[in-house]
């Protein structure tokens, strides 16, 4: 996939982190300047910021993850055992991370550096004296794959969603103490959004056979309202999963939903009676051909960032003051901005052959191509030399045998 994998914002400052496959870029979108860019061996799966802006972590698709400082210097790196990191959250008081594996979620401290194993620890890992908990400490475990995990605004609850249509709300920091199970979906839970200013409600979206959005009551585990896209036998949105949900941070009555392989995001409103209403179906101008929406997130200034699967485009739709100017929405949407990263990436992505190799700009200059051409001739010579050496070794072996027999 060539498009943007992740869009993650920081809460205090106007900073955004974008990932395009193996490369990561951190931008300041108030001044349009780049702060830092990274490059890795494998594609990126998850990014996370700290609330204070002092820490920053990245997870890759080869089961590794890294933690950085506020100056973007490496402080900790480690690898998981069972699967790729699904979601990363920073602990509010301690210096540790909550990472989800395929089925489990761990709490890993990044304060101390990894020391080499002493002899006592090696003895503990022998077969006779196996400890009960191998590896990192598990805080939570499901019996099927975890799709979403997040914490509420007050850091009181820790919510995890499942493929087996289960939503578990557990206390924080005592995660072994479950608060409530939220049950209502008929298929796997694919998306989740958390209210930015209150810990009484949150949203989830269902999977293939259940294209619906549910508004939950956190204290009881009961349903406030459920919106189904396929009411009255309307087969327009049949068998489409809800990919993304995000609240508008300035006015959390409004939120946006995106379905898979549908070109239009949907705008919803929550009433004072806690019921969901569909306000508008947004049409995007100049939609790229044969492409689909992949991610959509709201800004701290309540602008909508949209990323696509195959093009390196990011569209930003600016929304006005919500309650006053809803009638003039179309005029405002025409003033959208585009971030186009294509020109920077043409040289890197379309000329690269092996996507797991490290890339440097110097390797694609013309001078180096000539050197590589000379190397091809040297390769043949090297092969010949290696064959000759092997034959000589075999001759020496035979001579030794003959000499020993004599």
């Amino acid at each position, binding site marked *: 996939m060539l498009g943007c994998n992740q869009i993650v914002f920081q809460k205090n400052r106007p900073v955004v982190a974008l990932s395009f496959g193996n490369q990561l870029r951190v931008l300041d979108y108030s001044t349009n300047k780049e702060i830092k860019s990274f490059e890795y061996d494998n594609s990126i799966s998850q990014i996370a910021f700290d609330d204070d802006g002092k820490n920053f972590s990245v997870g890759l698709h080869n089961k590794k993850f890294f933690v950085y400082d506020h100056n973007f210097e490496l402080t900790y790196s480690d690898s998981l055992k069972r699967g790729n990191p699904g979601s990363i959250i920073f602990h509010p008081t301690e210096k540790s991370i909550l990472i989800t594996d395929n089925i489990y979620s761990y709490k890993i401290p990044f304060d101390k550096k990894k020391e080499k194993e002493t002899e006592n620890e090696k003895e503990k890992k022998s077969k006779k004296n196996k400890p009960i908990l191998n590896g990192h400490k598990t805080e939570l*475990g499901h019996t099927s794959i975890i799709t979403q995990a997040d914490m509420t605004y007050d850091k009181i609850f820790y919510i995890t969603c499942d493929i087996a249509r289960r939503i578990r709300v557990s206390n924080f920091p005592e995660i072994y103490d479950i608060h409530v*199970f939220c049950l209502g979906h008929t298929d796997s839970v694919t998306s989740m959004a958390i209210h930015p200013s209150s810990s009484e409600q949150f949203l989830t979206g269902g999977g293939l056979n259940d294209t619906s959005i549910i508004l939950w009551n956190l204290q009881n585990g009961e349903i406030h309202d459920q919106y189904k896209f396929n009411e009255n036998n309307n087969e327009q949105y049949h068998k489409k999963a809800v990919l993304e949900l995000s609240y508008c941070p300035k006015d959390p009555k409004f939120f946006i939903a995106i379905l898979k392989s549908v070109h239009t995001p949907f705008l919803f409103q929550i009433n004072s009676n806690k019921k969901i209403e569909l306000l508008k179906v947004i049409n995007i101008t100049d939609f790229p051909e044969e492409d689909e929406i992949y991610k959509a997130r709201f800004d701290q200034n309540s602008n909508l960032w949209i990323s696509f699967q195959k093009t390196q485009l990011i569209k930003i739709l600016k929304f006005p003051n919500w309650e006053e100017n809803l009638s003039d929405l179309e005029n405002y949407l025409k003033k959208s901005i585009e971030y186009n990263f294509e020109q920077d990436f043409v040289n890197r992505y379309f000329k690269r052959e092996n996507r797991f190799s490290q890339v440097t700009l110097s390797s694609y200059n013309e001078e180096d191509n000539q050197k590589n051409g000379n190397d091809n001739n040297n390769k043949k010579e090297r092969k010949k030399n290696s064959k000759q050496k092997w034959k000589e070794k075999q001759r020496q072996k035979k001579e030794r045998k003959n000499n020993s027999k004599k």
Partner: protein
Amino acid sequence: MSSSKTNQEEIKEKGVEKEQEKNVIEEETEKEKEIQKETENDPNKKKKMPKINLFRQKAHMNPLSLRQMDFNLSIRPQDMNWKEYYPNMEKGEHVDFADIGCGYGGLLFKLSEMFPNNYSIGLEIRGKVCSFVKEKISVLRHNEKGKYLNISALQTNAMRTLPHLFVKRQLSKIFFLFPDPEFKKRKIKWRIISQELLAEYAYFMKSGGIIYTITDVYKLHSWMKGHLEQHPLFTELTKEEYQNDPLINVISTESEEAKRVEKNGGTKFLACFKRK
């Protein structure tokens, strides 16, 4: 000369005897079917109990694979209709005891006598074994009126469907009798007691509720006891509580596995913990 027989003649005689036995068994089963048809609706005549030999099934099943039976139950526990299982259940009443991995139901029939005012349910993942327990319960309810109305069996995967059955702080006792040890390293995920599932069992239990576990395998016993000690919501019973509880003798003698262990002369290890 009639006493000395060759081997071939002995084999022939045995074969003839087997055929005769088969014919006799066929006649008996036909007679039983006729009798059952007569006694289905007759309250005066008594039914016969089902035979265990016809309901045997292999022991090990993968609890982590998604099966059709995981999606048959209602999504919310408030919508569950318990009158199919307990015909005399009223509005304010609910299930109290749960036997996870009940097997052929030896413990359930003892619980209905000891606790006539409490409802108990047995969860089993194997189909044939669960149908055996259901048939036995229906036969006993027909033969002895007014009894055995507070137990029943259900076929589910207990690792996945417990939140669909029970509500927060509902149960007061949970039983794990002789579970599968699963010695191999890659099958440790199949064990019924682990650090992750204990959080769910603690969610369904009242404060003061008790978990009963018993095995004859020492490795499993140390695994279960270690996990229960490390969990901060469970504490072990004191020696006085071990002696005063009448259920502890019942656990080690009533079920089929317990009787098998006594025959072979094995030792049993107990581990009972209380929820805070």
